[in-house]
Protein backbone atom coordinates (compact mmCIF):
# COMPACT_ATOMS: atom_id res chain seq x y z
CA UNK A 1 0.00 0.00 0.00
CA UNK A 2 1.32 3.37 -0.91
CA UNK A 3 0.71 6.53 0.99
CA UNK A 4 0.97 8.67 -2.14
CA UNK A 5 -1.94 10.70 -3.35
CA UNK A 6 -2.69 12.34 -6.69
CA UNK A 7 -4.89 15.37 -7.34
CA UNK A 8 -5.53 17.77 -10.21
CA UNK A 9 -5.37 20.64 -7.78
CA UNK A 10 -4.74 21.25 -4.08
CA UNK A 11 -6.27 24.17 -2.17
CA UNK A 12 -4.40 25.33 0.95
CA UNK A 13 -6.54 26.90 3.70
CA UNK A 14 -10.19 26.20 4.55
CA UNK A 15 -11.60 29.64 5.31
CA UNK A 16 -14.37 31.25 3.29
CA UNK A 17 -12.00 31.81 0.36
CA UNK A 18 -10.37 28.35 0.29
CA UNK A 19 -13.63 26.46 0.73
CA UNK A 20 -15.29 28.51 -2.02
CA UNK A 21 -12.32 27.98 -4.34
CA UNK A 22 -12.40 24.24 -3.55
CA UNK A 23 -16.15 24.10 -4.21
CA UNK A 24 -15.85 25.82 -7.58
CA UNK A 25 -12.90 23.68 -8.68
CA UNK A 26 -14.54 20.41 -7.63
CA UNK A 27 -17.74 21.44 -9.38
CA UNK A 28 -15.71 22.22 -12.49
CA UNK A 29 -14.62 18.57 -12.47
CA UNK A 30 -11.11 18.82 -11.07
CA UNK A 31 -10.02 16.15 -8.62
CA UNK A 32 -9.53 18.52 -5.71
CA UNK A 33 -8.01 18.28 -2.23
CA UNK A 34 -8.45 20.84 0.53
CA UNK A 35 -5.57 21.07 3.02
CA UNK A 36 -6.13 22.90 6.30
CA UNK A 37 -3.70 23.09 9.21
CA UNK A 38 -6.54 23.10 11.78
CA UNK A 39 -10.26 22.53 11.52
CA UNK A 40 -12.42 23.94 8.70
CA UNK A 41 -13.02 27.65 9.44
CA UNK A 42 -10.47 27.94 12.21
CA UNK A 43 -8.84 31.14 10.90
CA UNK A 44 -10.27 34.59 10.23
CA UNK A 45 -13.54 33.23 8.88
CA UNK A 46 -14.70 32.28 12.37
CA UNK A 47 -13.41 35.44 14.05
CA UNK A 48 -15.34 38.09 12.13
CA UNK A 49 -18.81 39.30 11.46
CA UNK A 50 -20.23 38.58 8.10
CA UNK A 51 -22.11 41.18 6.30
CA UNK A 52 -21.83 41.52 2.57
CA UNK A 53 -22.63 45.07 1.56
CA UNK A 54 -21.60 47.33 -1.29
CA UNK A 55 -21.81 50.60 0.67
CA UNK A 56 -18.38 50.09 2.25
CA UNK A 57 -16.76 49.71 -1.15
CA UNK A 58 -15.27 52.23 -3.54
CA UNK A 59 -17.27 52.89 -6.70
CA UNK A 60 -15.98 50.78 -9.59
CA UNK A 61 -14.43 47.30 -9.49
CA UNK A 62 -14.71 47.00 -5.70
CA UNK A 63 -18.47 47.60 -5.75
CA UNK A 64 -18.97 45.53 -8.90
CA UNK A 65 -17.33 42.50 -7.28
CA UNK A 66 -19.32 43.07 -4.09
CA UNK A 67 -22.66 43.19 -5.87
CA UNK A 68 -21.83 40.16 -8.02
CA UNK A 69 -20.97 38.24 -4.86
CA UNK A 70 -24.12 39.37 -3.05
CA UNK A 71 -26.27 38.24 -5.98
CA UNK A 72 -24.38 34.97 -6.03
CA UNK A 73 -25.02 34.39 -2.30
CA UNK A 74 -28.75 34.44 -3.05
CA UNK A 75 -28.34 31.80 -5.72
CA UNK A 76 -26.16 29.58 -3.51
CA UNK A 77 -28.59 29.86 -0.60
CA UNK A 78 -31.26 28.32 -2.83
CA UNK A 79 -28.99 25.64 -4.29
CA UNK A 80 -27.18 24.46 -1.16
CA UNK A 81 -28.59 21.84 1.19
CA UNK A 82 -26.37 23.18 3.99
CA UNK A 83 -27.90 26.29 5.52
CA UNK A 84 -25.44 29.15 5.92
CA UNK A 85 -28.07 31.50 7.36
CA UNK A 86 -28.30 33.82 4.35
CA UNK A 87 -30.28 36.85 5.52
CA UNK A 88 -30.92 39.88 3.35
CA UNK A 89 -31.10 42.99 5.51
CA UNK A 90 -30.66 46.68 4.85
CA UNK A 91 -27.65 48.65 5.91
CA UNK A 92 -27.47 52.14 7.39
CA UNK A 93 -24.31 54.18 7.29
CA UNK A 94 -25.06 56.72 9.97
CA UNK A 95 -23.76 60.29 9.65
CA UNK A 96 -23.21 62.23 12.86
CA UNK A 97 -22.70 65.62 11.29
CA UNK A 98 -23.56 67.68 8.22
CA UNK A 99 -20.09 67.39 6.61
CA UNK A 100 -20.25 63.59 6.93
CA UNK A 101 -23.72 63.65 5.38
CA UNK A 102 -22.42 65.79 2.51
CA UNK A 103 -19.55 63.39 1.83
CA UNK A 104 -21.87 60.39 2.05
CA UNK A 105 -24.26 62.11 -0.38
CA UNK A 106 -21.48 62.53 -2.91
CA UNK A 107 -20.54 58.87 -2.56
CA UNK A 108 -24.21 57.88 -2.85
CA UNK A 109 -24.58 59.87 -6.08
CA UNK A 110 -21.56 58.15 -7.63
CA UNK A 111 -23.01 54.72 -6.78
CA UNK A 112 -26.48 55.69 -8.05
CA UNK A 113 -24.92 56.77 -11.33
CA UNK A 114 -23.59 53.21 -11.69
CA UNK A 115 -27.11 51.90 -11.14
CA UNK A 116 -26.96 50.87 -7.47
CA UNK A 117 -30.00 51.47 -5.29
CA UNK A 118 -28.78 53.54 -2.37
CA UNK A 119 -30.30 56.67 -0.98
CA UNK A 120 -29.77 59.31 1.67
CA UNK A 121 -32.30 59.56 4.49
CA UNK A 122 -32.78 62.43 6.95
CA UNK A 123 -32.80 62.18 10.71
CA UNK A 124 -36.60 61.84 10.89
CA UNK A 125 -36.70 58.86 8.57
CA UNK A 126 -33.69 57.43 10.39
CA UNK A 127 -35.47 57.42 13.73
CA UNK A 128 -38.54 55.87 12.10
CA UNK A 129 -36.41 53.05 10.74
CA UNK A 130 -34.38 52.74 13.93
CA UNK A 131 -36.46 53.77 16.96
CA UNK A 132 -33.62 53.05 19.40
CA UNK A 133 -30.92 55.12 17.71
CA UNK A 134 -29.73 58.45 19.18
CA UNK A 135 -31.96 61.32 18.11
CA UNK A 136 -29.23 63.87 17.42
CA UNK A 137 -27.78 62.21 14.31
CA UNK A 138 -27.82 64.07 11.00
CA UNK A 139 -28.98 61.27 8.73
CA UNK A 140 -27.77 58.16 6.98
CA UNK A 141 -26.93 56.43 3.76
CA UNK A 142 -29.39 53.58 3.29
CA UNK A 143 -28.62 50.49 1.23
CA UNK A 144 -31.55 48.12 0.62
CA UNK A 145 -31.34 44.33 1.10
CA UNK A 146 -30.66 43.82 -2.64
CA UNK A 147 -27.16 45.08 -1.92
CA UNK A 148 -26.80 44.14 1.72
CA UNK A 149 -26.99 40.65 3.19
CA UNK A 150 -25.63 38.74 6.14
CA UNK A 151 -24.47 35.13 6.38
CA UNK A 152 -23.03 32.95 9.13
CA UNK A 153 -19.32 32.97 8.23
CA UNK A 154 -18.21 29.60 9.61
CA UNK A 155 -21.38 27.88 8.48
CA UNK A 156 -20.55 29.27 5.03
CA UNK A 157 -17.20 27.44 5.15
CA UNK A 158 -18.92 24.22 6.25
CA UNK A 159 -21.50 24.71 3.49
CA UNK A 160 -18.93 25.15 0.70
CA UNK A 161 -17.05 22.10 2.00
CA UNK A 162 -20.17 19.96 2.32
CA UNK A 163 -21.39 20.88 -1.17
CA UNK A 164 -17.90 20.39 -2.67
CA UNK A 165 -17.72 16.89 -1.19
CA UNK A 166 -20.71 16.01 -3.37
CA UNK A 167 -18.40 16.72 -6.34
CA UNK A 168 -15.64 14.55 -4.92
CA UNK A 169 -13.62 17.03 -2.83
CA UNK A 170 -11.32 15.31 -0.34
CA UNK A 171 -10.40 17.23 2.79
CA UNK A 172 -7.32 16.90 4.98
CA UNK A 173 -7.76 18.82 8.22
CA UNK A 174 -5.05 19.13 10.88
CA UNK A 175 -2.69 18.88 7.94
CA UNK A 176 0.89 20.03 8.29
CA UNK A 177 2.62 21.00 5.04
CA UNK A 178 6.37 20.71 5.48
CA UNK A 179 7.52 21.20 1.93
CA UNK A 180 6.28 22.16 -1.52
CA UNK A 181 8.37 20.54 -4.27
CA UNK A 182 8.97 22.37 -7.54
CA UNK A 183 10.43 20.94 -10.75
CA UNK A 184 14.20 21.50 -10.96
CA UNK A 185 14.05 22.69 -14.56
CA UNK A 186 10.68 24.37 -15.00
CA UNK A 187 10.07 25.50 -11.43
CA UNK A 188 6.53 24.12 -11.80
CA UNK A 189 4.56 22.71 -8.86
CA UNK A 190 5.05 18.96 -8.40
CA UNK A 191 4.04 17.82 -4.94
CA UNK A 192 3.59 18.63 -1.26
CA UNK A 193 5.05 16.83 1.74
CA UNK A 194 2.57 16.54 4.59
CA UNK A 195 1.78 14.50 7.70
CA UNK A 196 -0.60 12.58 5.41
CA UNK A 197 2.33 11.67 3.14
CA UNK A 198 3.31 13.01 -0.27
CA UNK A 199 0.51 14.65 -2.22
CA UNK A 200 1.17 14.89 -5.96
CA UNK A 201 -0.37 17.73 -7.90
CA UNK A 202 0.56 20.12 -10.68
CA UNK A 203 -1.47 22.96 -9.24
CA UNK A 204 -1.89 24.55 -5.83
CA UNK A 205 -3.98 27.52 -4.70
CA UNK A 206 -2.70 29.45 -1.69
CA UNK A 207 -5.84 30.49 0.22
CA UNK A 208 -4.21 30.87 3.63
CA UNK A 209 -5.59 34.38 4.24
CA UNK A 210 -3.49 36.37 6.70
CA UNK A 211 -1.07 33.41 6.80
CA UNK A 212 -0.60 33.27 3.01
CA UNK A 213 2.89 34.82 3.36
CA UNK A 214 4.06 31.79 5.38
CA UNK A 215 2.78 29.38 2.75
CA UNK A 216 4.42 31.63 0.15
CA UNK A 217 7.75 31.32 1.93
CA UNK A 218 7.74 27.54 1.41
CA UNK A 219 8.48 28.25 -2.26
CA UNK A 220 10.38 31.51 -1.76
CA UNK A 221 7.45 33.74 -2.70
CA UNK A 222 7.03 37.04 -0.95
CA UNK A 223 3.31 37.79 -0.57
CA UNK A 224 2.60 41.25 0.89
CA UNK A 225 -0.30 40.49 3.25
CA UNK A 226 -0.39 41.68 6.86
CA UNK A 227 -2.74 40.77 9.72
CA UNK A 228 -5.04 43.65 10.74
CA UNK A 229 -6.81 43.02 14.00
CA UNK A 230 -10.47 43.63 14.80
CA UNK A 231 -12.60 43.02 17.90
CA UNK A 232 -16.31 42.34 18.39
CA UNK A 233 -18.51 42.15 21.47
CA UNK A 234 -21.46 39.75 21.67
CA UNK A 235 -24.52 40.63 23.74
CA UNK A 236 -26.95 38.40 25.57
CA UNK A 237 -30.09 37.60 23.58
CA UNK A 238 -32.14 40.78 23.53
CA UNK A 239 -35.35 42.12 22.04
CA UNK A 240 -34.42 43.66 18.71
CA UNK A 241 -32.43 46.85 19.23
CA UNK A 242 -31.84 47.57 15.54
CA UNK A 243 -33.57 46.62 12.30
CA UNK A 244 -30.69 47.13 9.89
CA UNK A 245 -26.97 46.58 9.92
CA UNK A 246 -25.67 49.85 11.38
CA UNK A 247 -22.29 51.40 10.72
CA UNK A 248 -20.91 54.87 11.23
CA UNK A 249 -19.74 56.83 8.25
CA UNK A 250 -16.46 57.37 10.09
CA UNK A 251 -15.88 53.66 9.43
CA UNK A 252 -15.05 54.62 5.86
CA UNK A 253 -12.33 56.77 7.29
CA UNK A 254 -10.54 53.84 8.85
CA UNK A 255 -11.09 51.67 5.80
CA UNK A 256 -9.81 54.07 3.14
CA UNK A 257 -6.91 56.21 4.21
CA UNK A 258 -7.70 58.58 1.33
CA UNK A 259 -10.94 59.77 2.96
CA UNK A 260 -10.07 61.94 5.88
CA UNK A 261 -12.86 62.95 8.25
CA UNK A 262 -12.30 64.40 11.68
CA UNK A 263 -14.73 62.83 14.10
CA UNK A 264 -15.46 64.35 17.48
CA UNK A 265 -14.41 61.36 19.56
CA UNK A 266 -12.37 60.73 22.70
CA UNK A 267 -8.67 60.00 22.56
CA UNK A 268 -9.36 56.40 23.52
CA UNK A 269 -11.77 55.92 20.60
CA UNK A 270 -9.31 57.60 18.25
CA UNK A 271 -6.29 55.61 19.48
CA UNK A 272 -8.21 52.36 19.25
CA UNK A 273 -9.30 53.29 15.70
CA UNK A 274 -12.90 52.43 16.51
CA UNK A 275 -15.46 52.13 13.73
CA UNK A 276 -18.82 51.49 15.33
CA UNK A 277 -20.97 48.80 13.82
CA UNK A 278 -23.95 46.91 15.12
CA UNK A 279 -25.99 43.99 13.89
CA UNK A 280 -28.29 41.38 15.29
CA UNK A 281 -27.70 37.73 14.55
CA UNK A 282 -30.21 35.01 13.73
CA UNK A 283 -29.96 33.87 17.33
CA UNK A 284 -30.97 37.37 18.57
CA UNK A 285 -27.61 38.30 19.97
CA UNK A 286 -26.13 41.63 19.04
CA UNK A 287 -22.67 41.92 17.53
CA UNK A 288 -21.04 45.19 18.49
CA UNK A 289 -17.79 46.32 16.92
CA UNK A 290 -15.27 47.20 15.84
CA UNK A 291 -11.80 48.49 15.09
CA UNK A 292 -8.69 48.06 13.00
CA UNK A 293 -5.24 47.76 14.50
CA UNK A 294 -1.91 46.25 13.53
CA UNK A 295 -0.96 43.86 16.34
CA UNK A 296 0.75 41.02 14.54
CA UNK A 297 -1.09 37.71 14.87
CA UNK A 298 -2.08 38.23 18.52
CA UNK A 299 -5.86 37.84 18.70
CA UNK A 300 -6.27 38.20 22.45
CA UNK A 301 -8.91 40.83 23.15
CA UNK A 302 -7.54 44.04 24.67
CA UNK A 303 -9.49 45.68 27.48
CA UNK A 304 -8.83 49.19 26.12
CA UNK A 305 -10.42 48.14 22.83
CA UNK A 306 -13.46 46.77 24.66
CA UNK A 307 -13.87 50.01 26.62
CA UNK A 308 -13.55 52.12 23.49
CA UNK A 309 -16.06 50.03 21.52
CA UNK A 310 -18.60 50.29 24.36
CA UNK A 311 -18.10 54.03 24.63
CA UNK A 312 -18.56 54.56 20.91
CA UNK A 313 -21.51 52.16 20.64
CA UNK A 314 -23.46 53.86 23.42
CA UNK A 315 -23.13 57.17 21.59
CA UNK A 316 -25.31 55.68 18.84
CA UNK A 317 -27.45 53.29 20.93
CA UNK A 318 -27.66 54.56 24.53
CA UNK A 319 -29.78 51.58 25.62
CA UNK A 320 -26.74 49.33 25.23
CA UNK A 321 -25.64 50.65 28.63
CA UNK A 322 -28.02 48.19 30.30
CA UNK A 323 -27.55 45.24 27.96
CA UNK A 324 -25.11 42.51 28.95
CA UNK A 325 -22.05 41.53 27.01
CA UNK A 326 -21.48 37.76 27.19
CA UNK A 327 -18.36 37.39 25.07
CA UNK A 328 -15.74 39.23 23.10
CA UNK A 329 -13.59 37.95 20.26
CA UNK A 330 -10.89 39.25 17.99
CA UNK A 331 -9.59 38.18 14.62
CA UNK A 332 -7.21 39.34 11.93
CA UNK A 333 -8.08 40.61 8.48
CA UNK A 334 -5.69 39.71 5.66
CA UNK A 335 -4.65 43.26 4.78
CA UNK A 336 -3.09 44.37 1.48
CA UNK A 337 -1.81 47.94 1.13
CA UNK A 338 -3.92 48.82 -1.93
CA UNK A 339 -7.05 47.29 -0.34
CA UNK A 340 -7.53 44.84 -3.18
CA UNK A 341 -7.21 41.06 -2.81
CA UNK A 342 -4.81 38.92 -4.80
CA UNK A 343 -6.70 36.56 -7.13
CA UNK A 344 -4.13 35.42 -9.60
CA UNK A 345 -1.66 32.94 -11.00
CA UNK A 346 2.05 33.37 -10.34
CA UNK A 347 4.34 33.81 -13.34
CA UNK A 348 7.50 32.52 -11.67
CA UNK A 349 5.94 29.22 -10.53
CA UNK A 350 3.79 27.43 -13.13
CA UNK A 351 0.78 25.87 -11.42
CA UNK A 352 0.87 28.21 -8.42
CA UNK A 353 -2.21 30.34 -7.73
CA UNK A 354 -3.11 32.78 -4.96
CA UNK A 355 -6.55 33.80 -3.66
CA UNK A 356 -5.92 35.79 -0.49
CA UNK A 357 -5.75 39.27 1.00
CA UNK A 358 -9.44 40.18 1.16
CA UNK A 359 -9.02 42.29 4.31
CA UNK A 360 -12.48 43.14 5.67
CA UNK A 361 -14.33 41.67 2.70
CA UNK A 362 -13.34 38.04 2.58
CA UNK A 363 -16.72 36.66 3.52
CA UNK A 364 -18.52 39.01 1.16
CA UNK A 365 -16.20 38.29 -1.75
CA UNK A 366 -15.81 34.55 -1.21
CA UNK A 367 -18.42 33.35 -3.76
CA UNK A 368 -17.14 35.51 -6.60
CA UNK A 369 -13.49 34.78 -5.72
CA UNK A 370 -14.09 31.04 -5.98
CA UNK A 371 -15.75 31.53 -9.34
CA UNK A 372 -12.90 33.72 -10.62
CA UNK A 373 -10.28 31.21 -9.48
CA UNK A 374 -12.03 28.33 -11.28
CA UNK A 375 -12.09 30.47 -14.43
CA UNK A 376 -8.42 31.40 -14.10
CA UNK A 377 -7.40 27.76 -13.56
CA UNK A 378 -9.52 26.61 -16.49
CA UNK A 379 -7.94 29.31 -18.65
CA UNK A 380 -11.27 30.98 -19.39
CA UNK A 381 -11.79 34.74 -19.28
CA UNK A 382 -13.30 35.94 -15.98
CA UNK A 383 -16.76 37.54 -15.93
CA UNK A 384 -15.18 40.97 -15.82
CA UNK A 385 -11.69 42.39 -15.96
CA UNK A 386 -9.83 41.63 -12.73
CA UNK A 387 -6.32 42.42 -13.91
CA UNK A 388 -6.06 44.81 -10.92
CA UNK A 389 -6.07 41.73 -8.65
CA UNK A 390 -3.06 40.23 -10.42
CA UNK A 391 -0.04 39.25 -8.29
CA UNK A 392 2.11 41.01 -10.93
CA UNK A 393 1.26 44.38 -9.40
CA UNK A 394 3.82 43.77 -6.65
CA UNK A 395 6.66 42.92 -9.01
Amino acid at each position, binding site marked *: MTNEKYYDIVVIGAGAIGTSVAYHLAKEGYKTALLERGDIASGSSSHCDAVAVICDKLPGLDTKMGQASIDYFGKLAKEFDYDFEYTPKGCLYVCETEPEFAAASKYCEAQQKDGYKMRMIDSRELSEMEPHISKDLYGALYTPPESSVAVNPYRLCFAFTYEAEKFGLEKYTYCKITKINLNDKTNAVESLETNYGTIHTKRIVNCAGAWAPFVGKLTGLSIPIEPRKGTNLVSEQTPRLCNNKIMEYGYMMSKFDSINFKRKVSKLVEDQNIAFNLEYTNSNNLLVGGNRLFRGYDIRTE*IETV*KAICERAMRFFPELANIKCI*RTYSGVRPFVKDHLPIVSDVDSIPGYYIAAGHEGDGICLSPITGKFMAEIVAGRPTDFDISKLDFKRFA
Partner: protein
Amino acid sequence: MSEALADDMLVCRCEEVTVGDIKKAIRDGARDVVGVKRRTRAGMGLCQGRTCEKLVQQIISKELGVPASETGTSSVRPPVRPVTFGELAKGDVEDD
Protein backbone atom coordinates in the same frame (compact mmCIF):
# COMPACT_ATOMS: atom_id res chain seq x y z
CA MET B 1 -19.47 7.11 30.71
CA SER B 2 -21.11 8.45 27.51
CA GLU B 3 -21.93 4.79 26.81
CA ALA B 4 -25.02 5.38 28.85
CA LEU B 5 -25.99 8.60 27.12
CA ALA B 6 -28.97 8.35 24.82
CA ASP B 7 -28.72 10.29 21.56
CA ASP B 8 -31.71 12.43 22.42
CA MET B 9 -30.33 13.55 25.78
CA LEU B 10 -29.80 17.31 26.04
CA VAL B 11 -26.20 18.34 26.58
CA CYS B 12 -26.33 22.11 26.10
CA ARG B 13 -29.53 23.42 27.65
CA CYS B 14 -29.01 27.02 26.54
CA GLU B 15 -28.95 26.05 22.87
CA GLU B 16 -30.81 22.71 23.07
CA VAL B 17 -28.07 20.52 21.64
CA THR B 18 -28.32 16.74 22.06
CA VAL B 19 -25.77 13.94 22.38
CA GLY B 20 -26.75 12.86 18.84
CA ASP B 21 -26.03 16.35 17.45
CA ILE B 22 -22.58 16.26 19.01
CA LYS B 23 -21.78 12.78 17.70
CA LYS B 24 -22.76 13.94 14.22
CA ALA B 25 -20.49 17.00 14.49
CA ILE B 26 -17.62 14.68 15.41
CA ARG B 27 -18.35 12.50 12.38
CA ASP B 28 -18.24 15.71 10.29
CA GLY B 29 -14.69 16.40 11.45
CA ALA B 30 -14.88 18.16 14.81
CA ARG B 31 -12.02 17.11 17.06
CA ASP B 32 -12.41 19.53 19.93
CA VAL B 33 -14.85 21.60 21.94
CA VAL B 34 -14.61 24.57 19.56
CA GLY B 35 -15.18 22.37 16.50
CA VAL B 36 -18.31 20.94 18.14
CA LYS B 37 -19.44 24.41 19.15
CA ARG B 38 -19.21 25.81 15.61
CA ARG B 39 -21.14 22.89 14.17
CA THR B 40 -23.86 22.66 16.82
CA ARG B 41 -23.89 25.92 18.86
CA ALA B 42 -23.23 23.85 22.03
CA GLY B 43 -21.70 26.29 24.51
CA MET B 44 -22.75 29.45 22.67
CA GLY B 45 -25.63 30.42 24.93
CA LEU B 46 -25.89 32.57 28.00
CA CYS B 47 -23.72 30.33 30.18
CA GLN B 48 -21.03 30.09 27.47
CA GLY B 49 -20.45 26.38 28.00
CA ARG B 50 -19.85 26.54 31.74
CA THR B 51 -22.49 23.85 32.24
CA CYS B 52 -21.98 21.55 29.27
CA GLU B 53 -18.31 21.77 28.36
CA LYS B 54 -17.21 18.82 30.53
CA LEU B 55 -19.86 16.61 28.99
CA VAL B 56 -18.92 17.69 25.46
CA GLN B 57 -15.29 16.83 26.26
CA GLN B 58 -16.32 13.39 27.49
CA ILE B 59 -18.33 12.64 24.37
CA ILE B 60 -15.44 13.67 22.10
CA SER B 61 -13.04 11.63 24.22
CA LYS B 62 -15.23 8.56 23.91
CA GLU B 63 -15.97 8.94 20.19
CA LEU B 64 -12.38 9.63 19.11
CA GLY B 65 -10.60 7.53 21.73
CA VAL B 66 -8.49 10.40 23.03
CA PRO B 67 -8.07 11.60 26.62
CA ALA B 68 -10.65 14.23 27.62
CA SER B 69 -7.75 16.54 28.47
CA GLU B 70 -6.86 16.65 24.77
CA THR B 71 -10.29 17.72 23.55
CA GLY B 72 -9.62 21.40 24.13
CA THR B 73 -11.67 24.00 25.84
CA SER B 74 -13.73 26.88 24.57
CA SER B 75 -11.18 29.67 24.78
CA VAL B 76 -12.03 31.90 27.72
CA ARG B 77 -12.92 35.26 26.27
CA PRO B 78 -13.48 38.15 28.59
CA PRO B 79 -15.81 39.16 30.18
CA VAL B 80 -15.63 36.25 32.59
CA ARG B 81 -19.20 36.90 33.68
CA PRO B 82 -21.88 38.82 31.73
CA VAL B 83 -21.38 42.56 32.33
CA THR B 84 -23.34 45.44 30.79
CA PHE B 85 -21.84 47.54 28.02
CA GLY B 86 -22.22 50.50 30.40
CA GLU B 87 -20.04 48.87 33.05
CA LEU B 88 -17.52 47.76 30.45
CA ALA B 89 -17.17 51.30 29.07
CA LYS B 90 -16.20 52.46 32.54
CA GLY B 91 -13.75 49.61 32.87
CA ASP B 92 -15.74 47.92 35.65
CA VAL B 93 -14.52 44.40 34.99
CA GLU B 94 -12.82 41.99 37.30
CA ASP B 95 -9.22 41.28 36.45
CA ASP B 96 -8.73 37.74 35.31
